[in-house]
């Protein structure tokens, strides 16, 4: 591993730590003042209520939106730095770029894809709720649609990203 690659891997680890830490902040804040939308043994019971009473799904969408948004932004900060090597030190850029092809990095790219997809579709849902003044029933259905689309496109994209190292 060259110095540039080592620095990139360390920076990536720092990004992951920041993202996990942010996740804890979101969850613990939800537990304090989010009206019960937090991870505990009551979650399964709460989600088994009648659909009309399940506004909690929308709150979970909010937390997931925040978390995925932060994760993508944190990676973006690192990504600007590593792309800047292209102009500042092309040799170092090519070294760092090799890391992108490693299996663990490809796995993080799959995670990044899922985060981007969820944030995109849920973001479009939020826009639709505002613009078309949708009620809670329709917005809940759209949320299910966003999650299904994220899962389908995420799995398909991940298969393509992982294919070169799996075969």
């Amino acid at each position, binding site marked *: 591993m060259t110095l540039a690659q080592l620095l990139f891997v360390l920076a990536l680890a720092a990004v992951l730590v920041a993202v996990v830490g942010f996740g804890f902040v979101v969850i613990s804040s939800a537990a304090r003042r989010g009206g019960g939308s937090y991870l505990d043994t009551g979650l399964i019971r709460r989600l088994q209520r009648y659909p009309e009473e399940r506004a909690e799904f929308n709150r979970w969408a909010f937390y997931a939106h925040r978390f995925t948004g932060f994760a993508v*932004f944190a990676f973006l900060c690192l990504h600007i730095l590593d792309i800047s090597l292209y102009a500042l030190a092309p040799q170092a850029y*090519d070294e760092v770029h090799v890391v992108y092809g490693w299996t663990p990095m490809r796995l993080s790219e799959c995670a990044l894809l899922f985060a981007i997809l969820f944030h995109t579709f849920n973001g479009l849902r939020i826009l639709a709720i505002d613009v078309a003044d949708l009620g809670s029933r329709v917005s809940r259905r759209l949320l299910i649609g966003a999650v299904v689309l994220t899962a389908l496109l995420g799995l398909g994209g991940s298969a393509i990203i992982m294919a070169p190292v799996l075969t």
Partner: protein
Amino acid sequence: MSTPARHKDGEFRPGDRYDVPARAAGGGRLFYYLTVRITGLLLTILVLGHFIVTHITTDVAETDTDFIARRWDSVLWLLWDWAMLTAAMLHGAAGVWISIEDYTPDHEKRRRRQRLLVSISTLLFVLGLIVIAAAIF
């Protein structure tokens, strides 16, 4: 507050439409709202397109300096990346800004963290601009 629609028994039910009370459209709030929504809409195309080009149609292992040099020969891709950089930094910084607002009750600490966020975002944005400008000149 305008009155939300009620059922005959006078009850509100989940799914009823509530008319949103007219909020004084303060300049800052409206600007923030529009910035996040408009950049978000742009980013759906810019970021997904970027991800498709660098991971789906081209394997990520092929995106070396040659790949960038070839792509940045075209004005369209330079414009694309400039627009993506600008929209993403605005959108991301705005999102983290409001998260800091929510999770930092202490006023002084909040201002410090938001100043730090603005400094880091501005530095990275300028760095990105320099890299794109270097590809042009």
